């Protein structure tokens, strides 16, 4: 996994609440057996009309936000389906950080598996960032080590993050490798369970 340390990028404002994972990556893009290439389907129905032409009003079609690496969105971002394709699509499109007042649990966890940083900030702060993002062509800075977002005006916002998740993101750690260090404990758990709850063992 690509580590996340810091990011200096344009931020695209998407002032909508409950942006569900069906909207982030619609169903027709879930038939892939690959992780890569999903950026083309990101926010597909919001980005393109029925004929497949870009909708000019949508922020990610606005040339002023071209190359944006940060998304500033509304409440409960990533709710709905567990599809990790949502995180893959954002990453593939070039978004490495999403800032919102709140995130749905499964999406939030999926971000950390993909080098994507979800930042939850109070609604008032998100509104300020949203305003500063308007017009594009401004650079925001995100620094994970110090847990801060710096807006183009210089205003600084500190965010909270679970220390273990932060560390993994900073180092780009693979959690399977980490868990396999506990292999002996898993063995013991299984032996204990086989004795205590023998009905769970399938013949």
């Amino acid at each position, binding site marked *: 996994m690509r580590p996340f340390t810091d990011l200096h990028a344009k931020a695209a404002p998407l002032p909508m609440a409950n942006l569900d994972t069906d909207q982030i990556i619609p169903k027709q893009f879930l038939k892939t057996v690959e992780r890569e290439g999903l950026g083309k389907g990101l926010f597909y129905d919001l980005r393109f009309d029925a004929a497949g032409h870009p909708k000019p009003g949508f922020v990610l079609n606005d040339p002023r936000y071209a190359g944006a690496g940060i998304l500033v969105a509304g409440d409960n971002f990533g709710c709905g389906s567990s599809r990790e394709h949502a995180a893959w699509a954002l990453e593939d499109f070039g978004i490495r950080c999403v800032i919102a007042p709140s995130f749905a649990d499964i999406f939030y966890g999926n971000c950390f598996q993909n080098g994507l940083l979800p930042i939850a900030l109070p609604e008032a702060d998100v509104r300020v960032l949203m305003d500063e993002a308007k017009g594009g062509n401004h650079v925001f800075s995100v620094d994970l080590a110090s847990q801060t977002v710096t807006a183009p005006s210089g205003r600084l916002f500190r965010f909270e993050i679970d220390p273990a*998740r932060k560390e993994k993101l900073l180092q780009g750690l693979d959690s399977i490798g980490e868990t396999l260090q506990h*292999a002996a404990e898993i063995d013991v758990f299984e032996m204990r369970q086989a004795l205590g709850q023998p009905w769970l063992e399938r013949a």
Partner: protein
Amino acid sequence: MAGRTLYDKIWDAHVVSQDPGGESVIYIDLHLIHEVTTPQAFAGLRAAHRGVRRPDRTLAVADHNVPTESQALGVAAVADEEARLQLETLARNVADAGIEFFPMGDPRNGIVHVVGPEQGRTQPGMTIVCGDSHTSTHGAFGALAQGIGTSEVEHVLATQTLRQLKSKNMRVTFTGAPAPGVGAKDFALAMIGEIGTAGGTGCVIEYAGEAVRALSMEGRMTLCNMTIEGGARGGLVAPDETTFAYMAGRPSAPKGGAWELALAHWRTLFSDPDAEFDKEVVIDVSRLAPMVTWGTSPEDVTPVTGRVPDPAALGEARAQQVRRMLDYMGLEPGQPIADARIDRVFIGSCTNSRIEDLRAAADVARRATERGRRVADHVRAMVVPGSGLVKEQAEIEGLDEVFRRAGFDWREPGCSMCLGMNPDRLAPGERCASTSNRNFEGRQGRGGRTHLMSPAMAAAAAIAGHIVDARKFL
């Protein structure tokens, strides 16, 4: 020391180790998998030269992509090349790993959240995961069941564990007795209407109260299924005699002496009377009418006797949201919801495709036929059983005939039009009375308009040609 909740008990019993940072390694008793969220996980394992630790604790089905006809042909029935590749990839992956798999056309195949309980693989006290957010369904058995992403699927395949931070405890108590025609789907929609789609974020919800005790296992599964629409990853109902009666004799349920041992353990699975919950909600179901969604989020719900909101009466931020939703849904501010004319009806999905759901819908269809009525001319209505075995049972009971005679299309099992990943989907602008779980924009097909409701309500809407109070058909 304060007592423990049911969630605490299941969690404690599955902690393999705890990191100083706070994350725990939790053992997973059952891993359900399907074609859409696993190919990248198996590819990841191969790339890292890792194997599947417990194929015997894993069960695979094909459900999201499958067409709901001609399944006897197997994968050849799938016209979409990408979908076929995904199904073939699953078949190859599970064969390589030695994982039990019910392929398309096998009567045991069906929607993953119908199959697990039906086979007795889902059991009280278990930890269960699946790369699907509606895994919460299995909480109906008093199992800690949660949806996970594909990286976590890979993690569970490799280690049979999950790394997780413990959630908070929330309890929703349903008191009173519901009026006839009001059931589990209405409880769920009413709850989400009250707490909002983020109301349960960060929590596991335990459902309690006499109205939950009185629910069948099918009803409890409907309720737990919708938990994720309220933001909580898991929902729980403490197991009781209803649970044990459902479990007994299922193909993978314990037998003989093992059954007695299991039962003794299952009877310990409840929240202690002095257990404390971080969040409590109480809902009196005796006051509920059948519920329907009007917007594009499951929290946008109204009794069928109610009206669509009028943005003019709302604060600016909410008004803007509501205007956008009404525009998408093609509804007028303040209109009675029951005036909404429908084009399609979908009875099915992991929320409402079990035998009891089909009986409730068939009951409405039968009564309508007796009065000389059938599915309205302008409506296409489909009934999609949750599994091959549900389909067989319904056919033994003659429900297929009841549906056909009333003008419903009787289909083969799968996720079908719940998520539009297979040929069953809405055309732009079509309005659907649906027993599924999400009314998100485009969920059932681009531009499609979804109204969530119970099976009886959806069947009644098919006959009336518009949203209607199903109690008029009882």
